[in-house]
């Protein structure tokens, strides 16, 4: 596989991970806003617990997408960020307000009114942000963002202001809500009454997802012809069949209260939807003018990036697995501080030695780093009106000599 395609696959994989983790966090925010009934408070607590430990980590998938796009496909990044300046800015505002509201709610007073105000902002931003995300992805698939001579030719409103893009936004909302509710049925296993609340929500959103998917598909015929043509080619039907099977399994499992099965099926459903979309758009990054091949950076960069991603993956996936393992693990008795063994000793001397060595070491390292660039002295007691001076780097300068010292200098120029 060419490096370009490998990186395209990595972008898609990162988007799948973002949806499965970060997307579910957005969904959690929606259910937070829609929390109702006698157990609204408990629902919110359950959601907060589900999001709490790892939401910062989830965000990194989106950053990974951004970084891979601008490193491996710099012109594509410039095109996307210029054409979608407005929705992307809106997306950012949504991300900022959502993250801030979540963390502030946690650390603000437990007062109900204050809590509710942050919840409202958190929930509203959780609706708004994925909608704009869907809108933007829809715009990339629409084929309405065009280039002429490598420059954006269609202005700042192409693509994302169309019904197809709006349908993509709604579909993203539904997908994230369904995913979150399904996850939450598993997270609330210890509280069957709360679990029933989330089961009802998962079923409702899962059923609503079907018409949303159909609407998006139908609008794609006119709104995203290139992608639509791909979706209806030979591999279209098996893909739709896989997605539908996963959806049916998820709904049935929810109905029959096999919540772990439901979660697995929902993950399968979301993955096949995104992979299908990726295949349909392949090899375009922005349909139809920007492709993986014509936007790719030089090979040395692509290979360095692949190496970095590989090495990073080797380190991070085990760490991520450990994080999940820790939270499935029962809590141990709290650590008690006891004893009064003093930590004083010869720290004083040791600290002085450490500081001294560090200063010396840093000086040596930084000086060595500078050595090759040591400056040239000025001709002492310069003679003549105009003298030539060689600065440490670059062109020699012509300087005016007044009463034995240099005054104004000029670059002689080319």
């Amino acid at each position, binding site marked *: 596989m060419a490096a370009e395609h490998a990186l395209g696959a990595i972008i898609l994989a990162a988007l799948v991970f973002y949806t499965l983790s970060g997307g579910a966090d957005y969904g959690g925010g929606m259910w937070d806003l829609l929390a109702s009934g006698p157990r609204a408070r408990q629902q919110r607590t359950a959601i907060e617990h589900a999001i709490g*430990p*790892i939401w*910062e*980590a989830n*965000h*990194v998938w989106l950053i990974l997408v*951004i*970084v*891979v796009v*601008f*490193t*491996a496909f*710099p012109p594509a*990044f410039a095109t*996307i*960020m*210029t054409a979608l300046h407005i929705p*992307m*800015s809106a997306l*950012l505002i949504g991300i900022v307000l959502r*993250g*801030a509201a*979540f*963390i502030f709610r946690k*650390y603000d*007073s437990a007062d109900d009114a204050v809590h509710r105000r942050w919840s409202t902002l958190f929930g509203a931003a959780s609706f708004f942000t994925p909608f704009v995300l869907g809108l933007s992805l829809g715009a990339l698939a629409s084929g309405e963002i065009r280039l002429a001579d490598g420059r954006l030719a269609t202005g700042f409103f192409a693509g994302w202001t169309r019904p197809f893009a709006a349908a993509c936004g709604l579909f993203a909302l539904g997908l994230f809500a369904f995913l979150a509710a399904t996850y939450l049925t598993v997270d609330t296993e210890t509280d069957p009454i709360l679990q029933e609340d989330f089961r009802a929500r998962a079923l409702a959103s899962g059923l609503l997802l079907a018409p949303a998917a159909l609407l998006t598909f139908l609008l794609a015929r006119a709104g995203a012809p290139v992608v639509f043509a791909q979706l209806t080619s030979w591999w279209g039907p098996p893909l739709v069949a896989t997605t539908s099977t996963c959806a049916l399994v998820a709904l049935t499992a929810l109905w029959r209260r096999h919540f772990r099965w439901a979660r697995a099926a929902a993950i399968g459903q979301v993955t096949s939807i995104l992979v299908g979309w990726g295949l349909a758009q392949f090899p375009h990054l922005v349909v139809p003018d920007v492709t993986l091949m014509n936007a790719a*950076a*030089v090979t040395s*960069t692509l290979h*360095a990036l692949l190496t*970095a991603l590989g090495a*990073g993956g080797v380190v*991070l996936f085990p*760490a991520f697995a*450990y994080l999940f393992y*820790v*939270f499935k693990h*029962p*809590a*141990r008795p*709290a*650590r008690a*501080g006891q004893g009064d063994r*003093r930590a004083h000793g010869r720290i004083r001397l040791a*600290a002085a030695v450490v*500081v001294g060595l560090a200063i010396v070491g840093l000086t040596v390292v*930084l000086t060595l*780093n*500078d050595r090759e660039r040591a*400056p040239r*002295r*000025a001709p*002492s007691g310069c003679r003549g009106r105009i003298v030539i*001076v060689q600065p440490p*780097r670059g062109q020699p300068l012509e*300087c005016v000599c007044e009463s034995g*010292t240099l*005054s*104004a*200098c000029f670059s002689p120029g080319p």
Partner: protein
Amino acid sequence: MSPDLTFARSQMALSLAFHIVFAAVGVGMPVLMVVAEGLHLRTREPVYLDLAKRWADGTAILFAVGAVSGTVLSFELGLLWPGFMAFAGAVIGLPFSLEGFAFFAEAIFLGIYLYGWDRVPAGAHWLAGVGVAVSGMLSAIFVVTVNAWMNAPTGFEMAGGRIVRIDPLAAMMNPASLNQAVHMVLAAYVATAFLVAGVHAFFLLRDHHDVFHRRGLGIALALASVSTPLQAVSGDALARMVAIRQPAKLAAMEGHYRTEAGASLVIGGIPDDAAMTTRYAIRIPRGLSLLAHHDLRAVVRGLDSIPRDEWPNTRIVHWAFDLMAGAGFVMLAVAGWSGWLWWRRRRLPDDRWLLRALVVTAPLGLVAIEAGWIVTEVGRQPWIIQGVMRTSEAVTPMRGLIVPFVTFTLVYVFLSVILVYLLRRQFLATEPARRGVDRGR
């Protein structure tokens, strides 16, 4: 300069100025927290555990805001500077992706640290804290190498205005990287240490015998007295690098207009571009040659050797530099004072006057960081990549950039107000209920 370029620069500056506070404290706090927990493991004194938990809580709030504002920056690179990213994305992408991983690692370790107090063995928990500190430092280093590349672009070849060959590793290890990265990481430690020391000193002025705050002050002062002198060394090396690589920036920093041998150091005053001199300044003869080249007679290039349309804004750069250096020397003096007291008495220096000084100097580290970034960014203008690409060539063709600028300004003001309120509440409200109570989750 077109108004849209001004707004684009202002929005970027604002986003960076906001983010850097949280990024810097996010690099520094984990060090304090790990030291406190380590001391707890050694001495079994419960007060150290209390400290570690309180500091970890503060880290969590700040890290979350830092993560979100960092996401904003990665988008804004493209939203505001598509020309720069299309040109340079492939050259500087490697450190960005490594930074992504370091950030990921930091989030994972912080997750284990915050929620794992009762779930993982004590030693592993402490190691998770070390992981937070190390990965935080690494993210800072990686991101700073990108900025260093903008100051000292290397690792690529150009033909016909396009980049044709790239050596991503050489771009990352550019001549400015080491100096800038060391300076930023140390700045984060100094700023955090002074901030935290100031808070604990404030409470000690109320109750001189509070063990919690005495231990907290001790750890913060230890970090301050180690990192502040190192920062002076690193600043000196960085200035010499700038003198060679970016003479326009150095000349603007120092308000130095005319190229001369044995140049004097200009402190304060008002740079006057028309008259080519800095008025009302204090001058130390031969000081600049000594600082910039470690040689009393060295030639220091002035702004006169730079074409007029390649000068940065001299007033902003000169004043920001003096502010940074001034703050640095005040902090060096305070760190030296407390280190000396500790050396003589072999116990926590707790003179009332020292405590008052620490309260006053608490924000100076952050002030120095902001001023330092102004120096390096405004000082590089009109270039976005020194000598290669102008900022005006990089800006988005989007019009009406005042709208996102005003919107983001309002959002950041709103966030700052709330955040200050929350952190203040966190400190004051939990104060009486603190001792001996396990506030862990």
